């Protein structure tokens, strides 16, 4: 029985999970939970996900929420398939964990504030908070300076191989670059820019973007 991923395919956190599955060549069924009509806050869905968020996955009888817990699970379960996403030693894994936490705690909240105010609200005809967006952009620039220093030393965030730490950044960064006009923040950061071009050109990510655009429900590798 295929893995089921519940959520909205355009949303950042479900994309993180789907990207991991595509990297690992794992087929899945995408089950739409229409967050635009608040389906994720209805009791039937909240039976599965007590915080009323997306994504949620079912792998046979095993169920899980929190996209970063989900990608860790699949990366471990399919450790022997596709790219090594978690490092091979305790030390390598710790670096992956470190940058995963940076993404979760420092990068993404800042990035989300920008995407929310410059894209998500305006496309619904609501005013975004420009002041908040600008403050977040300045913060993001400083965060990216730190990334630039790291990426001048290593090809990817946690070392010289692509790992979950890079993967979890991709969906929200795509929104920043393609929908919020923030590609220019990378212009004075050659290593971060090269990193973004590299990770966003990965065949698995491109396959996922095609899958999302197609509106299909079943992904087969």
């Amino acid at each position, binding site marked *: 029985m295929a893995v089921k991923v519940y959520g909205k395919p355009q949303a950042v956190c479900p994309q993180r999970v789907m990207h991991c599955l595509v990297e690992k060549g794992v087929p899945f069924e995408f089950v739409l939970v229409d967050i635009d009509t608040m389906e994720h806050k209805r009791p039937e869905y909240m039976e599965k996900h*007590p*915080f009323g968020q997306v994504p949620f996955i079912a792998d046979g009888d*095993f169920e*899980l*929420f*929190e996209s*970063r*817990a*989900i990608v*860790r*699970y699949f990366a*471990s*379960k399919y450790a022997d398939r596709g790219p090594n996403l978690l490092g091979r030693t*305790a*030390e390598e*894994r*710790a*670096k992956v*964990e*470190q940058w*995963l*936490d*940076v993404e*979760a*705690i*420092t990068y993404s*909240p800042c990035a989300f504030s920008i995407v929310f105010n410059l894209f998500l609200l305006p496309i619904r005809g609501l005013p975004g908070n420009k002041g908040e967006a600008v403050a977040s952009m300045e913060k993001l620039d400083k965060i990216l300076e*730190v990334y630039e*220093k*790291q990426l001048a030393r290593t090809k990817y965030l946690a070392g010289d191989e692509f790992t979950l730490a890079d993967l979890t950044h991709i969906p929200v960064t795509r929104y920043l670059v393609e929908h919020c006009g923030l590609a220019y923040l990378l212009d004075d950061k050659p290593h971060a820019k090269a990193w973004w071009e590299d990770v966003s050109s990965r065949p698995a990510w491109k396959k996922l973007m095609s899958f999302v655009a197609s509106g299909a429900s079943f992904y087969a590798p």
Partner: protein
Amino acid sequence: MGSVTVYGPPISPAVSRVLACLLEKDVVFNLVNIDMSKAQHKSPDFLKIQVASPPPLLLFFPTVSILLLNLPFGQVPAFQDEHTTLFESRAICRYICDKYADRGNRSLLGRRGGGLVERAHVEQWLEAEGQSFNPPSSTLVFQLAFAPQMGLPQDPAAIVLNEGKLAKVLDVYERQLQESRFLAGDEFSLADLSHLPNSHYIRAGGKEELFTSRKHVARWWEEISMRPSWQKVVEMQRTPPA
């Protein structure tokens, strides 16, 4: 022996998270305090200088060693284990549990026989702590415990707003803790441990009713806060730095 060092003051919630984990795992460590009021952790020298493999001398000259650590975001804790330097308290805790898997409490990332599934449940609730519990509780910790100490005015609106958000999260926990003894199952795990620092300060800051008014959350708090490892951390927080 003595290869593990934690940098930062024990009163910092993130530092205390790492200390609790080390104590659960019976891993011997050195604690090097950083005076955050003098903003040592944000000085340009502190942030820019890096060292690939620190010489053992550093352990004998703590002030010097702080300057030679690369802490790109200038936060605490910083952590060193021989040649490995890490930041981000939850990543450090996961590393300690992986690296010292055979020491102390062996169930922090799921029981040995529990496989991927148990670990994934721990990861799920550890993420819930980081993503849902941490933001409102951190604001409350600052407002209730640190602002007064630092002579800063409290923001009553922020307190009310974040109490409301935290109450919703604790309602979810209340339902989960009816089904299982701890968040991820019937054994104490890293997911529970991660909640200790902020919860402690919120209760000490006068908002213990958030916990005591929820029967299963109250029961859970009693159990996790009475663990000897956490009692020792609280003692360390009370002890003035040497």
